[in-house]
């Protein structure tokens, strides 16, 4: 698979001249058109293309918004309203960008959970997976900083709470906090550096996405049965087969996207963010955006000291750990079978993990009191147990079901 033959032959002297000096067209044909792709990919595999498009949507709308936005604490709130009220098409562009962030995460989580189910992190795709985790973390940082820019109450207090997390780091905590905020409290310097980084980091993400796709094109796609591609009978060229299928999926994905943009652009946000930031008034509940809630729950779940680690630092370690652990996943799950379809025990724990993750999300929006505290601890424990105990153990004790010999044999069988 590592050598993909391209049937590109330059037509005419100009194309040949270019091809000998910079084989850009050859490269594009090889990787965007002829690339051999397993023919049995299901719709869960379309979310990669959906994410690529969503990144473009966010960057394009974001660049236009930056033309009209003013990163100053006295002007930011009104400049966003100015975009909504007075800029031509501004209300659509702004709503697309704000709702787009949520839709980006919907696609991102589905993409990640697809990888988790079908074992897409396993050899030889470890680096592909790790690059994906880097993108995930970067996108969370970008989204968080973007939410600060309208300078509403949730922007301000979210920024205060989240940057405060870093002060729990031993020794370097306080200087780190001041570096992030550009002062002792969240203020104009904070807004300015968040704006700057919010503009920069998406391009870093785009670069990591290029590496992600590069790392994908070395071993090629995983597939729903998790059996390696054995011959060209197992694959179809990416274009037109997957370009058309992905395009269909993208357009379908745009339907709920448009529903929110045009009919309920604020339903995914918090009303408090339409109140201009005020350092003197704390909102009743400070709630991060929904896509950060699972990790917020993990942060809050550690409300007890462990030896010399106080609860605050413990929470930060748990939250950071919940992301860092993903880097080690390829070596924690030692089962040789990739696809969850053929792993009867894995399947149970996987779906439990999905439900548990939704519970973590739900708990993040609830006040940390009563039954919620206990539930948060249980869910956090399961999150870590899944990676550290269940997956390593399953790979030892589980008997997987027999695998099809190859992709083409499996799809030619009497399955349908």
């Amino acid at each position: 698979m590592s050598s993909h033959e391209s049937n590109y032959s330059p037509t005419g002297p100009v194309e040949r001249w270019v091809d000998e000096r910079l084989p850009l067209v050859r490269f594009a044909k090889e990787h965007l058109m002829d690339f051999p792709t397993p023919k049995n990919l299901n719709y869960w595999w379309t979310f990669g293309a959906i994410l690529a498009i969503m990144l473009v949507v966010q960057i394009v709308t974001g660049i236009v918004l930056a033309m009209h936005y003013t990163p100053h604490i006295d002007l930011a709130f009104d400049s966003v309203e100015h975009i909504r009220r007075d800029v031509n098409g501004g209300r659509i562009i702004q709503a697309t960008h704000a709702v787009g962030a949520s839709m980006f995460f919907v696609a991102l989580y589905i993409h990640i959970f697809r990888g988790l189910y079908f074992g897409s992190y396993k050899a030889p795709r470890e680096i592909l997976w790790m690059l994906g985790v880097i993108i995930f973390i970067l996108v969370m940082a970008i989204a968080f900083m973007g939410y600060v820019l309208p300078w509403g109450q949730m922007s301000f207090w979210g920024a205060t709470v989240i940057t405060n997390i870093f002060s729990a780091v031993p020794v370097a905590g306080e200087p780190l906090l001041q570096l992030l905020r550009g002062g002792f409290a969240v203020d104009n310097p904070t807004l300015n550096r968040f704006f700057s980084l919010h503009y920069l980091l998406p391009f870093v993400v785009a670069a990591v996405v290029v590496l992600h796709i590069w790392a994908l094109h070395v071993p090629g796609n995983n597939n729903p049965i998790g059996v390696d591609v054995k011959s060209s009978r197992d694959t179809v060229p990416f274009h037109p087969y997957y370009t058309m299928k992905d395009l269909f999926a993208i357009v379908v994905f745009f339907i709920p996207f448009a529903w929110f943009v045009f009919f309920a652009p604020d339903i995914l946000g918090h009303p408090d963010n339409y109140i201009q930031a005020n350092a003197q008034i704390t909102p009743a509940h400070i709630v991060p955006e929904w896509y950060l809630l699972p990790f917020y729950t993990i942060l809050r779940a550690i409300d007890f000291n462990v030896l010399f680690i106080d609860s605050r630092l413990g929470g930060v370690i748990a939250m950071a750990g919940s992301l860092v652990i993903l880097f080690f996943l390829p070596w924690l799950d030692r089962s040789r079978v990739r696809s969850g379809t053929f792993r009867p025990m894995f399947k149970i724990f996987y779906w439990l993990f999905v439900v548990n993750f939704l519970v973590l999300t739900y708990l993040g929006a609830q006040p940390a009191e009563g039954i919620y505290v206990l539930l948060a601890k249980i869910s956090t424990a399961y999150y870590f147990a899944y990676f550290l105990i269940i997956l390593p153990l399953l790979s030892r004790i589980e008997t997987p079901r027999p695998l099809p010999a190859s992709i083409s044999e499996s799809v030619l069988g009497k399955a349908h």
Partner: protein
Amino acid sequence: MFKFKTILAALVGAMALVAPATAAEPGGPLVPKQSWTFAGPFGTYDENQLQRGFQVYREVCASCHGMRLIAFRNLSEPGGPRFSEAQVRALAAEYQIVDPAAEGGVRPGVPADRFPTPFANEQEARDANGGAYPPDFSVIAKARGIYEPFPNWAFNYFTGYSEGGPDYIHALLMGYREPPEGIELQPGQYYNDYFPGHLISMAPPLQDGLVTYEGEGVPETLDQYATDLSAFLMWTAEPHLVARKEAGFRVITFLILFAGLLYFVKNKLWANVKHRNPSPDDVERDARA
């Protein structure tokens, strides 16, 4: 298509979880939802209602509450109260606008001016109102929401419910009453069923017959005033709502038709490629056979 349905279901499920973010704190009675002309995908503002709401704002609220993001010209724009341009010009001229470039520092307003705020700054506003700060009305309808218990809020993602703000404002204006036993009111405090914490520093601003509407047929009641004002505040917060929803209808219609066409193209393309995956049971049966 089974897989595809699973994905849709997953999307819907994920969306439903986004929920509790908009919840205000529970406690006190739930805010009753009103029926608004601007609700739903085909909602539009009722021009007459917006005009009445503006009248209520101007005669009652404007002495304390500003509307700094709204320009006089907005009142004649499509999708809004649709006052005539002459009316707007006359209205603007009634206001004195602070303008250092003008003789004497003030001049009569023009349609391009924004509504002047009733107080020069927050401190002055607090001094005039017993320490309370009357919030600006520009986006207040989007800065308020209502609490809904599970699972009611989950349905909002499918109905596109975005009228929590006007519902809350309407309820607040109607929600004044005698405090229950055991609650002491400080001077300048009032009891309101729907205000967070119930103790509000705004005296009941509206009562039956307070504002005289032109023409016949519209009742001059507290309920009517509260409804008209809430609708007007939704417009100030979302002046392009009608255009946005109209565009949305066109966009979604296009996307659905386009998706349909793409589906047929994709199916035709894939018709000769066998690509369905077997279940583990199928694989086992095949292996035995």
